[in-house]
């Protein structure tokens, strides 16, 4: 598990001792394709770091059915809602293919971070980087860059 954790960018900034501590609150888990991992609105207890496979984040929109908001893959964090009150899933999640992930027990992770603020700080840095990447990608999608230019800015 120690070597495995070191290979994950999120834990690259941690030393061996800190990775060992993370190993005590992490589980290697597998999900079959088509398995619903999260239901929006349910209480959060853990979050996942996807190691392989892909997951669709979705929500139900009246008139449109279940809409995929984003897909996640290897190296992505699944379960950001765990980090913020009211700790309920904002979106659902279903595996699109077999998924291997590291499951992190939320309450225990919080306890080890409280006990070792240096670990908490480094982990937070890694998570913040991942969150900022996600924010940038979402903003890029909002630009709708591949759309037809508006009439006033059309090309020759």
């Amino acid at each position, binding site marked *: 598990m120690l070597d495995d954790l070191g290979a994950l960018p999120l834990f690259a900034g941690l030393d061996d001792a800190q990775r060992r501590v993370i190993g005590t609150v992490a589980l290697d888990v597998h999900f079959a394709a088509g398995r619903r991992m999260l239901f929006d609105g349910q209480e959060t207890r853990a979050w996942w770091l996807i190691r392989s496979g*892909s997951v*669709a984040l979705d929500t139900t929109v009246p008139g*449109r*059915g279940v*809409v*995929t*908001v*984003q*897909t996640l*893959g*290897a*190296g*992505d964090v699944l379960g950001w809602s765990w980090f913020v009150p009211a700790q309920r899933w904002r979106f659902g999640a279903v595996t*699109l293919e077999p998924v291997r992930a590291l499951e992190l027990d939320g309450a225990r992770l919080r306890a080890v971070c409280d006990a070792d603020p240096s670990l908490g700080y480094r982990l937070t840095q890694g998570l913040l980087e991942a969150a900022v*990447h996600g924010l*940038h*990608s*979402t903003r*890029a*999608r909002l*630009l*709708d*860059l*591949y*759309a*037809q*230019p508006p009439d006033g800015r*059309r*090309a*020759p």
Partner: protein
Amino acid sequence: MLPVAYRVVERAAQTRDAATLRLQPDRAPLRRGRPGQFYMLYARGIGEVPISISGIEDDGSLAFTIRDVGAVSRSLHSTRLGALVGVRGPFGIGWDTSSAIGHDLVIVAGGLGLAPLRPLVLELFGHRGDFGVITVIVGARGPSEFLFRDELAAWAAGGDLRVELTVDQPAADWGGPVGFVTDPLARLVLDPATTTAFLCGPEPMMRFCADLLLRDGLPAARVQLSLERNMQCGVGVCGHCQLGPLLVCRDGPVVTYATAGDLVGVREL
């Protein structure tokens, strides 16, 4: 500098507003262009637009993928089989693969940006042994907006390269990835010492991708991008395509991020 007559011998609709025309010389052909170069296409009585080559055939015919975004492109886009189109070129600098021999290649296309990258990919198939892992990431607004869909499927099935498609906007009939091209790009495990990247799409898209690649340690000189400006003369005389110290028709359209990285983010440049 005068347009040469080419005849439309094939027209394939790609999306609701983009089509690929295959043009054959009516008489003597123009010089054969390289992937990444562009030609000026003339719609008689309407005007001329710069279009990158999307296919270079052995029989001397050229393919251009045109999106209806204005008067000239609308006329070209709707050109019928057998009609004549004026062609000048080839112009500019294309993709540089010679400096990437032995490297892994990352090719990122967004929207219509796949068109100038297609001949590069086709050329790579002919020299597959010269390169390591080749990853092609293609982003589109929605599932129906991908260019060359059949070819993308064939490339993915062929095993010579990794193909990752992603859409910005989900659709009911799409079970594939949803996200911006930077999402699959960020998931790639790259060796920055032996990777070269080729980017084509809207300029912000290329900027975001280049920033990610630089963050991963890729030198800016090994990130190539194709710029789009108001090319008119095609030979660096008229100045309409000036971008700071560059005349894109002459110094581009393919430039490295080392050359253009500081220019593409400047407002109104």
